């Protein structure tokens, strides 16, 4: 089986700046694949190359088995793209945004209308079909953009930060729709800097930092490999959390000092919290939780994802 995305040593430069610095990626049909990383990690540049709207500077890139440099229009005909910033057509209505977009793919008018109605129903916007785009909420606009990305029945959907800037309720609605697509067997490729998004949606992901891939695997396997089972978050009433680091020595596998708290990486969170109390360090706050991708990222790069 050929990969839908096949990249080897892929590089993107803008003048002197290298946005993507030699990455290898393979995405299989039916997968939900994620690029996880902070802003500026090179995720969007990678997505634009995959979407065939930005030529690679160097390296191998094959999309759907075709060469983006030569077969751009043929590849784009089979992709759905949901960009980071909505670029809906503000001069058209909600429904027209879908029917007009379908025409760019050469879909007949009647079929375009049929698909538009079906997709509006799918993203729960049927009642707003004749409204202009402007008055829609952020979540509605994003759902409309996702519907627009589906209008050509794509083999693969690219979603760049699909829920950035949405309130929690709107995010869950988007996730739920994306999960539905995934169940239908649509290949999803998304970028995100939200841990929970990556954990909820991705079968497999790569962690990017500074234009490079620093780790790859399923969310669970990444956590197992790069973190411990549980984490104890300690907050001390001081401006200098680091001063407590020495006093915590020996508890758990390792610790991370952040400006506002200390993270203890341990197998048994409650046991570790008891040990902290035995040493009478009296932290102002103690939180025991399971490890997440945030911890993986912190371990790999020494930085938090969302600043």
């Amino acid at each position, binding site marked *: 089986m050929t990969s839908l995305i096949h990249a080897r040593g892929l590089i993107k430069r803008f003048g002197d700046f290298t946005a993507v610095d030699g990455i290898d990626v393979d995405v299989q049909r039916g997968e939900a694949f994620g690029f996880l990383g902070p802003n500026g990690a090179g995720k969007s540049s990678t997505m634009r190359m995959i*979407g065939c709207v930005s*030529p690679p500077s160097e390296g191998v890139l094959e999309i759907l088995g075709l060469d983006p440099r030569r077969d751009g*229009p043929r590849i784009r005909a089979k992709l759905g793209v949901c960009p980071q*910033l909505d670029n809906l*057509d503000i001069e*058209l209505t909600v429904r027209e945004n879908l029917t007009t977009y379908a*025409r*760019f*793919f*050469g879909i007949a008018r009647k079929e375009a209308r049929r698909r538009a109605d079906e997709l509006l129903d799918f993203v729960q916007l049927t009642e707003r079909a004749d409204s202009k785009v402007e008055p829609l909420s952020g979540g509605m606009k994003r759902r409309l953009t996702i519907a627009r990305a589906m209008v050509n029945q794509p083999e693969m959907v690219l979603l760049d930060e699909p829920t950035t800037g949405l309130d929690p309720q709107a995010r869950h609605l988007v996730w739920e729709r994306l999960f539905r697509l995934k169940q239908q067997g649509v290949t999803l490729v998304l970028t995100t800097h939200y841990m929970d998004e990556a954990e909820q949606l991705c079968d497999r992901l790569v962690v990017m930092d500074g234009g490079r891939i620093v780790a790859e695997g399923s969310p669970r396997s990444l956590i197992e490999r790069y973190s411990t089972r549980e984490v104890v978050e300690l907050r001390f009433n001081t401006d200098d959390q680091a001063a407590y680091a020495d006093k915590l020595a020996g508890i758990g596998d390792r610790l991370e000092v952040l400006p506002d708290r200390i993270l203890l990486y341990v197998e048994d969170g409650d046991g570790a919290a008891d040990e902290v109390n035995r040493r009478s360090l009296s932290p102002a706050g103690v939180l025991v939780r399971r490890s997440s991708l945030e911890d993986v990222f912190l371990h790999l790069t020494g930085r938090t994802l969302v600043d």
Partner: protein
Amino acid sequence: MVTLVMPRLLSFEGTGRRAASVTERNISTLRSAYWVVMVSGFLEPVLYLFSIGVGVGALIGDITLPGGDVVGYAEFVAPAMLAASAMTGALAETTFNFFGKMKFVRLYEGILATPVRPIEIALGELAWAMARGVIYSAAFVVIMTLMGLTTWTRALIMLPATLLVGLAFGALGMAVTTIIRSWQDFDLIAAGQFALFLFSGTFVPPTAYPEVVRWLIEVTPLYRSVDLIRALSTGTTGWLQLLDVAYLLALMALGLTVAGRRMAKQLTK
């Protein structure tokens, strides 16, 4: 009904079909308020024709064309107004509106994620600008003919000529728009456009100016357009009009090439 049958009769795949989908998008944006824009664009050349062609013309009397034919002043001015309105119509759509779509509403970014390519957007926008320009031109030639400034047969031949003028200026406008950076630069375009309008043999034959100025006028695109349409309108065509046609075709090809390349460069970094 026509739109439903057309695609099946004309199998136009690839570039033509994709460019047409961009034109179609613009047609979808048409709202009832658009007629205000249409009326103002149509009125401008008509007002010039009556105020200067007929009004000032009464003081001037007749004018001798380069070939020796003598025509009334209104007959002299009317075809120039037609050429100028074809220019204005094409530039309105391909400068101001095109710039907004390129830089601010991110419209093309969405379109380029589909199989449509930058040059096809340029072609589609140009076709759209022409649709608007042709309506102005058709209305204007009807007025010219009713005023007895030309004949119905000549009016029919003038229409495709105005289309050519529109295509050349539309392509030029797009090329210039991909180069300019801010809304302020449109003042420069407007100034240049007005200078062309005043001096391209529109109200005064270029022979009335000193030799150097005359040459300068004769190489401008609007002069070549005026020359072509005036010859058709007064029935005084000759070999020189083939030069006009070649000039305008070359301008169109150049403009489209530049616009397509620069759009690709700016939108697909």
